[in-house]
């Protein structure tokens, strides 16, 4: 067994697509709330730096998006008060909150996803459907630190031959352009060496195979199966449960079948948290024996 981040990246990607897909596509506050809970719990559990900033950002974003809707949308029958003769309605406020929650939730999931997927994993997923784009991506990722380093060296070399003499803004821009231009020539000319090095090692001659450090284990298949089934079941069982915001709020009562559907989605969004908790406990136990 592994922590959620160690699952096969394709399985992880599919999981994220399905979870965020349901959050975005299904217009149902219960789904959004459940998904929000899962996303926040998972983020808290993974910890890491910049956590607090992330939560504060989400809070601010939530309030801003929640506020915008009632200000511009005057649908709805329950008027709360007027601003500049424009009615602010309860329905619009509630819809705004719901929509804001959805956005915040999706962003939580995205940030959790980017946190898990390092460049190796992304390239693996990319390579699965387009090896060529994956290779360009891999080369670009290799060039970025190389060029940044180069840019620094060009900048020092140019400073020492008297660039940036005046120190004012046009001089700085001119200097920046010069540095960038020199670096571009360098990058393009040396890029040919990379191309030669690729050809010398047989690139473009025949059918490429693919080597990755990732494998599919049984639990990866399990994750894929769980994700697909849970998504299908939850969407299917709740299909008759429709929330209506405009013109007036209508919250139909939740049937037992609906409840099962929400439970299925709940299991899905909580999967990473449960999995990692289990791993943590197991690891503590194992470590206690060392």
């Amino acid at each position: 067994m592994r922590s959620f981040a160690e699952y096969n990246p394709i399985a992880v990607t599919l999981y994220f697509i399905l979870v965020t897909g349901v959050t975005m596509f299904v217009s149902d506050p219960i789904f959004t709330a459940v998904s929000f809970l899962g996303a926040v719990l998972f983020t808290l559990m993974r910890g890491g730096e910049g956590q607090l900033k992330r939560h504060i950002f989400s809070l601010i974003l939530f309030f801003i998006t929640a506020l915008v809707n009632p200000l511009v949308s005057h649908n709805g029958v329950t008027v709360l008060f007027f601003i500049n003769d424009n009615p602010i309605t309860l329905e619009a406020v509630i819809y705004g909150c719901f929509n804001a929650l959805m956005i915040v939730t999706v962003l939580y999931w995205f940030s959790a996803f980017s946190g898990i997927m390092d460049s190796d994993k992304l390239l693996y997923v990319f390579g699965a459907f387009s090896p060529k784009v994956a290779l360009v991506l891999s080369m670009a990722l290799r060039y970025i630190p190389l060029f940044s380093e180069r840019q620094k060296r060009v900048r020092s070399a140019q400073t020492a031959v008297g660039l940036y003499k005046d120190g004012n803004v046009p001089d700085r821009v001119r200097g920046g352009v010069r540095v960038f231009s020199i670096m571009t020539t360098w990058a393009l000319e040396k890029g040919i060496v990379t191309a030669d090095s690729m050809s010398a090692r047989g690139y473009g001659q025949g059918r490429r195979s693919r080597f990755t450090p990732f494998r599919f284990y049984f639990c990866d298949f399990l994750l894929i199966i769980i994700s697909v089934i849970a998504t299908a079941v939850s969407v299917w069982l709740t299909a008759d449960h429709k929330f209506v915001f405009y013109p007036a709020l209508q919250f139909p009562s939740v049937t037992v079948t609906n409840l099962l559907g929400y439970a299925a989605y709940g299991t899905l969004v909580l999967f990473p948290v449960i999995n990692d908790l289990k791993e943590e406990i197991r690891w503590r136990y194992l470590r206690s024996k060392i």
Partner: protein
Amino acid sequence: MEILKVEDLSFCYPGEKEPVLKDISFSVAEGEFLCLSGATGCGKSTLLRLLKKELSPKGDRSGRILISGENIDDLDSAEKIGFVMQSPDEQIVTDTVWHELAFGLENIGMKREKIALRIAEIASYFGMSAWYDKKTSELSGGQKQMLNLAAVMAMSPDILILDEPTSQLDPIAASEFISTVKKLNRELSLTVIITEHRLEEVIPVSDRIMIMKDRGIAHLGSPRDIVSRVGDSPEILASMPSAAQLYHAVDGEGQCPLDVREGKRFIETGFRADHTALTSEKYTHSEEKALEFKQVFFRYAKETQDVLDSLSLTVYSGEAYFILGGNGSGKTTALGAASGLLKPYSGSIRVFEKKLKEYKNNSLYSGCLALLPQEVETLFLSNTVREELIDAYEEAKMLPIDVDTLLDKHPYDLSGGEKQLIALAKVLSQKPRILLLDEPTKGIDAVSKQRLAEVLRLLKKNGITVVAVTHDVDFAAMCADRCAMFFRGRVVAENTVREFFSDNSFYTTPINRMTRGYYSGAVTVSDCVELCRLNGVRDGAAV
């Protein structure tokens, strides 16, 4: 058994009238270590590229190239022939070490399980397991070049071609690289064809040497044989080991020495030692301080270690001061600090007795101080040499090359040595009184090195102070007035050049090692020649 056979090969680049290669024929046996040498522009790189189908330049080719008896055109040579080039950085394709190792194997469509096994083998053989998961950008230059070699070897080629593989490496990484290649050659019976600027390391491990000249093969044979025959062409001799240069300079006869051990025997059995030292004038310097460091501390980031650790040194006006030392000893950092690019957190740096801070608005860089960076390409902005030299034509005219023939070329199309000199001209157009050089001999051939030494002598004559950072002890011995040894961010030894190298046991020139305990104070070939002449041939010795 012959693994490679070249028959009457001629080659002409499109648009050129004269061919670069003409009627070249030779063959290489399996498991042979062949070293290819010749002046810059003699066509050795073209020849190497013609041997590797994927890299063959476009142009008119005649003659045949046979690999294991098969014509190269009918053959997929990606697997059979490995090719390693100069630059450690640009040859790397992907962003991680493991992916780089797997890259070639993926290209030939090898099965996943086999790739896993092969790269495990290669990583173990090259001792790379510890950095298997690293990003390629985090490796050192030496590690990068080793990775390039490993990535090529992963495809288990029959022939390995190396085009100046160590020219961008420091001496320690370079010698490690060459010994790894030799190990592959010995343990796997791998056929190796190599070109190099520095032959000191390569000649002793080569089976045969091929010297190219005038578009063809001038000499081909065993190292000893060839080295004793190149006395008549100074540009080829310049790249030879010091012992061989000495042998030719004193018109030696008999067996030509190739390394320090043989050189020592050659001197001691051939020449008397009545005068053990050269009479040299006592070194005097001017009183004006051109550059002064006083207890300078510097680190790149708060959490890291000090790179300059209470560094103090003084360079006097008009002298050539060379800083030597291993990687990470703070040499280049000191140069950065001296040129005001890096700001120390404590201590003071003065240029011509004025604090760096007092040079307002970068006035330091006009008429006072100039820095020639390690990568001279960082100075080239234009599409032609002519445009590059707009403000520096006067300086360029002074250089020992014919600038006018280069004017219409693109700076990137110049040879390493030419680039170096053009960049130097640009830097000199700032009319500096003190010139800082960062690894000026990196990647240039022996002849260019001599030219550069000439330029530095000329500059000194014009009263310009030179401060250089280098790994190249031979070059330092040739040009310096005083040398300093850096270790862990400070100067551990400082002396005039002869005394400096005579006091060192390891970090010194091959000539000094050869004459150790026999003559004293000999550091360059010409020192030794002078001493030999002074003492005369030992009675009955065959010199």
